[in-house]
């Protein structure tokens, strides 16, 4: 039983990793918002847009009443529609699975663009 559970966990992790890579690669190839010039910009962009994307995929409404939020919302909506169209398995995920997947996407995007980035200009204090 233990070996089976372990194998099942490993498979689930592999699936999560594979799906995360697909979704992150889509962002990298088709989006620009994750590459704003400074680390603090990127943290805000990733947090807001991927957070909204996760909520929308879960079927929740997001507040887009301010111009700033509307700007994040249009990028999030683009991701949601593209994911649903290009990766139909997204439509079969339950709320918890979406939450886990999108957290993984956020962590990976943060790693690639902020915490693991080799870009020496990210910590510049000025624009």
């Amino acid at each position, binding site marked *: 039983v233990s070996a089976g559970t372990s194998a099942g966990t490993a498979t689930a992790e592999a699936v999560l990793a594979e799906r995360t890579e697909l979704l992150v690669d889509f962002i990298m190839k*088709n989006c*620009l918002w994750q590459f704003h010039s400074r680390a603090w910009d990127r943290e805000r962009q990733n947090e807001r847009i991927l957070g909204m994307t996760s909520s929308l995929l879960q079927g929740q409404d997001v507040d887009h009443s301010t111009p700033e939020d*509307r700007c994040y919302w*249009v990028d999030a909506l683009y991701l949601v529609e593209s994911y649903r169209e290009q990766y139909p398995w997204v439509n079969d995920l339950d709320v918890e699975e979406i939450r886990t997947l999108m957290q993984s996407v956020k962590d990976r995007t943060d790693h690639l663009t902020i915490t693991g980035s080799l870009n020496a200009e990210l910590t510049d204090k000025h624009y």
Partner: protein
Amino acid sequence: VPYHEFDCSTSIPERKKHAVIKGEGEDLTSALPLGYLNTIPGSISERGCAYCGAKHVIGTPMKDVIHLSHGPVGCTYDTWQTKRYISDNDNFQLKYTYATDVKEKHIVFGAEGLLKQNMHEAFDPFPDMKRMTVYQTCATALIGDDINAVAQEVMEERPGVDIFVCNSPGFAGPSQSGGHHKINIAWIDQKVGTVEPKITSDYVINYVGEYNIQGDQEVMVDYFKRMGIQVLSTFTGNGSYDDLRSMHGADLNVLECARSAEYICNELRVRYGIPRLDIDGFGFEALGSSLLKIGRFFGIEDRARAIIEEETARWKPELDWYRERLTGKKVCLWPGGSKLWHWAHAIHAEMGVDVVSVYTKFGHQGDMEKGIARCEQGALAIDDPNELEGLEALEMLKPDVIFTGKRPGEVAKKVRTPYLNAHAYHNGPYKGFEGWVRFARDIYNAIYSPIHQLGGLDISAGPIPESGGFVTRKMMSDINLPEEVRRSTQMREYTGKYDSVSGLRDREYPYLDELKAAS
């Protein structure tokens, strides 16, 4: 980091960290070259200077302005006929080029008097031209000429005149990118907020980082107007000086070239609360999603969809014709700054070409992050390359075509690699749906040009064979295509006009006209 060391640059060991190959399993945390650093002595860089980046890239596309260089006449080289940022006022900013023509005696005795005299002489023949930009150069910066003081005097002597001073001499940064930064900040500090915006629509944007190369801006503005959106200002292609002083009145900054203009967008967000939306005007998919995002921002998504539908139906069959003939062709994408990421994925996904190398002359590491993220595995990424490295890369990668500037482009021709002008274009505009097809047509014509049949013959090896006949482009491009593709009635070659821009200037825009009538 999987650095790539060029054989020709082993004597400049610092160069090694400026090139990487994105190999199997590599990502941005392991494959990123250094960038935006001073050019290493001994490396013959292809970069421009900070003055060039401020004036010739960003300042001069403004159309209703006298643009004056304060310095030796040679600094104005990249102006008349060498830039292609056209305008709808008969290209005033291209036709008239001004320099104070500073000589050795002025370096010794000062050039402020010369500057003032030149400013008056420039204004005198154009009584309707009330706006001027003046650019510092290395020579006049070093002698300490106070351009601001002279500009103030001239403004007092000529009522109604407004002058912008850009203090970005050539040495003020590692490359032209330093000049982009300086003029962005100077403009928002000196000019934004000094003219009250004239708002004529409920949907108002600034279109930023767009320079109207062969009409790109006019193509995009046409889409915006068809959606009922007012473009309050364009920073700066085909842009008006006074419109740019009122940038603070927009609801949204739509940013195209982040490399050259993200600074002003960031500052507009911080100072005026105007959000920044980065878009791509190149490629059907990217352009379509960009229009859709802007439409959604304003709640007029249906108008964006109507444009996407109409334009796609009109131009997609023509893009497909070229895609069939370009698939698998190898491309070196070697532009100046932003096009490596604007184009890297879009040309692969929509034209089928493989990007085997990206480089940037003056981009920052952020541009390389975008470019490397968007290209496929195995691509060679080079920062601030020199001519020998370019030649070595061509020998190694054997691309079918390179997209670059006119100087490295001419070098590539010498080793018989076709080149397209990535900065000024060959037969642009390249933005917009039709523009993207024009780009595909230029790529096709470059790769399959019959001239290469003659160019490859060695005339020193003996008589040229005369019996082989002449092989046309289509004979070459279609030889391996399936019958159904060759005879397709769905796909077709480009059918647009030679001039795809001028006609846009006479268009009517029902949504905007309605607003005008209502007001």
